[in-house]
């Protein structure tokens, strides 16, 4: 199977190897094409964003105002902080020049003179690797002012790396822009969307690292080639990061639509001790978990996963065997969202805290039966009531874990637990659905 983003070529991270394999030739040919032509190719290729929402990349680009008269920006999202997601670091480490070439082509397509590559702060090593690749590309004239002469064009662009500092929320596109602008990483209210009002108020396109790394091959080999790979509605390969209870965890680049069971059992080597699978989170921690006994036939692409009651997310597959305590898993996940909630919207700031308290109470063996429904109620009151999708990201695991694994929770609660009423969360356990009487 052909690998598009992470081809198996030794030392591809070195500029010499990359150039020897035809690297930066595509940028040259792309720069000879008009911006409309490139957007059209990407649109027809069917490429969809790899950062979670799986939105059509070409369509996103077409939303940006046309022409080179106004300042526009490109942001590349390498914040990669979703638990279970560790694919972008492979691109930084093994194929950084394809990413840089993709950035150059994208800048040309949307007429952006400046691109900011946002990499999470913990990735010190990968930031250094990426900076080295970028310095090499500058030195050879593939990026920056010198590219005019190199490619024989009057277009040039600069690429800067912006280092994050440990905030999951900065993977949200508007929060990422605030972070680049030197502010707290609060998400912005949308609309206006970044394609109209983005970085410093200028039209801005934000794409995931993996998405941009797909651009050079698409331009080089054509949209017909790309759109024929994998599932028609979500074509191309995806970087699947498999973690948890598998024998060979790691990143596997496979065509979209590959069977989930195929990935787990064939590529990732199955479950240690041949244990049964209790639960799989198929797209990074925010996506609804699937039951281990319902994995047969599930294909890994946006449409198939939606039909199966989950979502593709970032393709981070977390496998949990039959001995896993799902209540503990959920308590830990909820702690993550509580920690990472930016605090801007009340439902998320307060709700994530409540969920952690309730779940920890169940883990301690002090949970009552009504706590389970209270959890669902709190989650449902976060969902849809926040500025950004972190609300859903925090609520979905709770809501779906409880709906799909209710027996796991019921095993750990009891009606005989008596807790003194110390605060509102405690007092609310008396009613099954405390907010049922509140209209809207």
């Amino acid at each position: 199977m052909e690998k598009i983003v992470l081809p198996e070529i030794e030392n591809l991270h070195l500029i010499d190897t990359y150039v020897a394999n035809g690297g930066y030739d595509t940028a040259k040919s792309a720069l000879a094409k008009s911006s409309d032509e490139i957007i059209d190719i990407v649109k027809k290729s069917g490429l969809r964003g790899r950062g979670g929402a799986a939105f059509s990349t070409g369509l996103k680009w077409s939303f940006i105002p046309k022409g080179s008269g106004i300042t526009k920006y490109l942001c590349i999202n390498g914040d990669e902080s979703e638990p279970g997601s560790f694919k972008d670091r492979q691109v930084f480490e093994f194929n950084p020049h394809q990413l840089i070439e993709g950035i150059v082509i994208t800048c040309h397509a949307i007429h952006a003179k400046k691109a900011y590559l946002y990499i999470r702060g913990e990735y010190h090593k990968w930031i250094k690797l990426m900076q080295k690749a970028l310095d090499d590309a500058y030195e050879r004239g593939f990026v920056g002012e010198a590219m005019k002469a190199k490619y024989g064009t009057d277009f040039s662009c600069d690429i800067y790396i912006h280092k994050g500092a440990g905030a999951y929320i900065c993977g949200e596109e508007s929060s990422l822009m605030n972070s680049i602008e030197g502010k707290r990483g609060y998400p912005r209210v949308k609309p206006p969307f970044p394609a109209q009002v983005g970085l410093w108020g200028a039209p801005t396109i934000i794409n995931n690292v993996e998405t941009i790394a797909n651009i050079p091959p698409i331009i080089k080999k054509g949209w017909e080639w790309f759109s024929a790979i994998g599932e028609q509605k979500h074509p191309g390969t995806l970087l699947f990061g498999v973690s948890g209870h598998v024998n060979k965890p790691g990143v596997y680049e496979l065509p979209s639509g590959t069977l989930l069971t195929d990935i787990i059992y064939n590529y990732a080597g199955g479950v240690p001790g041949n244990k049964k699978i209790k639960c799989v989170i198929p797209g990074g921690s925010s996506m609804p978990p699937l039951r281990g006994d319902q994995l047969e036939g599930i294909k890994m692409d946006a449409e198939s996963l939606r039909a199966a009651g989950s979502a593709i997310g970032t393709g981070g597959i977390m496998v949990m065997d039959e001995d896993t305590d799902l209540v503990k898993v959920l308590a830990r996940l909820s702690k993550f969202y509580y920690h990472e909630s930016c605090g801007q919207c009340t439902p998320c700031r307060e709700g994530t805290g409540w969920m952690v308290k309730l779940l920890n109470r169940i883990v301690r063996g002090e949970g009552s039966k009504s706590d389970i429904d209270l959890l669902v109620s709190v989650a449902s009151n976060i969902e849809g009531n926040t500025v950004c999708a972190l609300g859903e990201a925090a609520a979905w695991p709770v809501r779906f874990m409880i709906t799909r694994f209710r027996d796991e929770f019921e095993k750990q609660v009891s009606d005989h637990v008596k807790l003194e009423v110390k605060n509102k969360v405690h007092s609310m356990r008396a009613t099954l659905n405390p907010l049922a009487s509140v209209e809207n």
Partner: protein
Amino acid sequence: MEFKFSVENQEKIERIIQKYPEKQAAVMPLLYLAQEQHGFISVEAMREISQILEMPETDVLGVVTFYSMFHQKEIGKHHIQVCTNVSCMLRGGMQIFDAVKSKLGINNGEVTSDKLFSLEEVECMGSCGTAPMIAVNEDYFENLSTEKAIEILNSLK
């Protein structure tokens, strides 16, 4: 205690500011520089940065408090970060955290009395495929067992 950027860092600052159309955007890179130079970010450092970037001191503080990698207090020479998020947890991350905690004799967020170690339970570091992991300052140590984690601590001086 006064804070001034070193001459070398002042040159870096010039170059960093050039990367952005507005000065304020340089606040995170400058905070990193201050932290590198001084070990943590002091009130004086924030004041200095606010003057360089012509932005209110409170906004600098706002940025510092928002991001978990900016430290307002001294941390150990070796800052030990243990991931206990799900992928690591499934492969023994919690046990490693407990072992490190008892080995160092400190709790999450504390510094040993000799200032050699500090401990932080961190959220997902992107090492899910090589879990469990710890990070010592900027370096990742992956595919660990509790024993290996303790060995690493023993090797740090």
